[in-house]
């Protein structure tokens, strides 16, 4: 299928939306409520484009691409429609971007910047909701919520938890748990999927607070250190500090998902209880030692035991959490150097 976007011919396949074809062709159409894996709701209309032969602007995320369509994504009509939406959103937004955790990675901020919306043209009512930071992981500030409902949909349709939904109508529409309880008093499982989905600063990671701005962090792909699913994480790192953890959107196997441990269980590595020096026990208590001293002690003891009792008097267990290369190296030490197959790990738990 061929369609024309801003004068350029683009290839698409049956079943793709205008948004998908445009993105594949390198055109940037903004979205707020769109979620790649879920059925579009067409709720925010920020993604509108102009289609030749159609009277109204259409939402790119929910309009199927069709052979021969001629589309403009950047006409004045499109831009002014977008500007109007953003002005409405900005008019009731707190605009404390200076201290907002989302600054630099906020879709609303980016749109306002691109469309030249300053927020001065309209002055709307602001919300006055209390900010919920009563748990260690997720801060909820619904004063900043633009009601895109992504959080609700990922909670329900991706994670299958159904902890949050919209309540009330009109200006007072709000996302809330049952009875408007805190997350810890709801069915929430703290997977943080809603935080990853939120395009603005309404849902943010509490631990990330003050640790670094979006443009200061480098993104490092890695694998979750907890269960055997092997979820792919994107660490946001400033210097040596992990600021926050996101899921790799298209990574296998987790396709943008994490659980509470994978998303929020990372900072044990910074604990001041870490072991930082080799220790040798003397008269019942530990004293610090140099690597040379500790390594020599172990190697000499092993040599002595091998000489006296043979290599099978030594045994070891490897770690089921550390990297493959470490386990390989340990079994090699036992087999090739010590000379025993007494090497195991807790394979069974």
């Amino acid at each position, binding site marked *: 299928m061929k369609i024309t976007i801003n004068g350029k011919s683009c290839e698409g396949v049956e079943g793709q939306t205008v948004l998908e074809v445009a993105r594949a062709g390198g055109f940037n159409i903004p979205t707020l409520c769109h979620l790649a894996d879920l059925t579009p709701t067409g709720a925010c209309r920020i993604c509108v484009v102009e289609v030749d032969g159609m009277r109204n602007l259409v939402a790119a995320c929910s309009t199927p691409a069709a052979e021969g369509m001629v589309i403009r994504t950047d006409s004045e009509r499109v831009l002014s429609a977008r500007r109007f939406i953003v002005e409405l959103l900005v008019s009731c937004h707190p605009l404390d971007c200076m201290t907002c955790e989302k600054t630099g990675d906020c879709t609303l901020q980016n749109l306002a910047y691109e469309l030249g919306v300053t927020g001065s043209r309209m002055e709307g009512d602001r919300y006055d909701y209390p900010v919920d930071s009563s748990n260690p992981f997720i801060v909820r500030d619904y004063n900043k919520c633009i009601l895109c409902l992504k959080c609700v949909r990922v909670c329900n349709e991706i994670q299958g938890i159904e902890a949050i939904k919209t309540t009330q109508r009109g200006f007072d529409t709000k996302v809330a748990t049952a009875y408007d309880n805190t997350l810890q008093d709801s069915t929430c499982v703290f997977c943080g999927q809603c935080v990853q989905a939120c395009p603005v600063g309404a849902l943010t990671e509490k631990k990330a607070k003050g640790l670094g701005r979006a443009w200061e962090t480098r993104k490092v792909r890695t694998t979750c250190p907890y269960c055997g699913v092997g979820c792919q994480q994107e660490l946001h790192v400033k210097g040596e500090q992990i600021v926050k953890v996101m899921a790799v959107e298209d990574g296998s196997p987790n396709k943008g998902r994490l659980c509470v441990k994978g998303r929020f269980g990372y900072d044990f590595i910074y604990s001041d209880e870490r072991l930082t020096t080799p220790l040798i026990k003397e008269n019942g208590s530990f004293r610090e030692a140099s690597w040379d001293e500790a390594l020599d002690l172990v190697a000499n003891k092993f040599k002595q035991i091998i000489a006296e009792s043979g290599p099978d008097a030594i045994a070891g267990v490897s770690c089921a959490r550390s990297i493959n290369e*470490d386990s390989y190296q340990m079994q090699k030490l036992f087999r090739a150097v010590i000379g025993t197959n007494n090497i195991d790990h*807790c394979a069974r738990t």
Partner: protein
Amino acid sequence: MTNSFGEFADAKMFLCIGTNMTEAHPVAATFLKNALRKGAKLVVVDPRRQPLAKLADIHCQINVGSDIAFLNGLMNVIITENLYDKEFVANRCDNFEAFKTKIMEYPVERAAEISGVKPETIREVARLLSTVKPAMLCYTLGITEHTTGKDNVMSTANLQLLLGNMGMPSAGVNPLRGQNNVQGACDMGALPNVFPGYQKVIDPAMREKFARAWNVEKLPENNGMMMPHMMEALPDRKIRAFYIFGENLANTEPDIHKVERELASAEFLVCQDIFPTETTRFAHVVFPAASWSEDDGTFSSSERRVNRVRKVKTPPGEAKPNWWIFKEIAKRMGHTWESNSSQEIWDNEVSVLAPALGGIKYSRIEEDGLQWPCPTLEHPGTAFLHRDGMFTHGKGVFNPVDWKAPAEIPDREYPFVLSTGRRLYQYHTRTQTGRSGMNFLMSEETADISPADAQKLGIQQDERIKVRSRRGEVEVRARVTEQVPPGMVWMSFHFREGSANWLTNAVYDPATMTAEYKACAVNLERL
């Protein structure tokens, strides 16, 4: 896993047995839930009415440790009602007749009596399983942590062979691994009987191959000891030096009193860890290690996928990469090893020596990992095993197995069966989760008991009670919940104080030496 997580979302049917997936493998469970939304069927076999069971079309609430009786009864119905995949069984499988003879000893009424599941329910499951194809069978430690663990595993495989649910997408036998790199530690040969890549140490050709690669004259010929035997050999000094890398055995092994006696008796104990633990207390030497995010490397997930792990910070103080520590010991014992980084170890040693990993190099897994078998650099990796019923040994083999009761069953003195497992917000002995804020969501151990038993014993929600077994006793709060059936107590081992492992029974499956964490007898007392 024979199959992959990526196949969950399109699966038509799941049989989940002994897996608390929503808590222990939460992201896997989200894909399962997505499939259910699209109309997939779910049968859960589990003594507890845990969250997954609540989503099930049929929940078979079996008695603890009755898995084989239940599965044999199920297969009895499938065979007697002619519901099995005759073509697959005839062409792709061996040993059906002997298997069938065994299965005939488990008429559905007998299975029902042992498992506590009604005969009609077992029949219903059999019929459902035979109408929806393929089905993915998933299990976790509910299958393996029994004295009959190995037989339990074979029984699940028998069922999938019988139904012809092997060698295609969204099918197979899928053990979900508890820890991030249990799969990898096995693949790497941290096992007493195999070199990396499951090449047997008793095979002279393999010994020769590895001796050449490792530049040594010979390698030990006999299988080594498994972990429980190692520890049991400490008191009489049959094992004189014990090297523990990363494991917190003093909390994770059954019967903490026994484990600590053993550890305390060690002549020479070396521990290598990122934190001081209950286990390092017993060490003579402690090595401080680099942790996750402090070294480059790979983990292998349950679906046999080799994924990259990356370094973002330097280890604290003098802590060093683990591979470096092993290399330094080797050097001091007269062996110079060449590889000097995780990448060199993987690319130049592991993937050269393990045929199934031969095609996996760091350069190929910059983004998504590759699933072994991946024998060549061109190979795309393997999402599911036994394609078209081609098994490693030619055909799939039925293994007739008998049901046996757990080693310790409730009696007058200890009338409850204790089963153990993991909870969502904590992980193992909390060395990691206990230091990342999770205590807010779960701050102490509880004994989960049924409302019926709570009422009988006059125990209130959250009341502190004593749980006692022949090995020890703990005081914990009672969590009265519909999840647990009468006669059962359920606990985890995350908190040292109140850990189930003060109570658990150090008896093992004779083949795998996996402990029976899922069944022992306890008593409950009000304080």
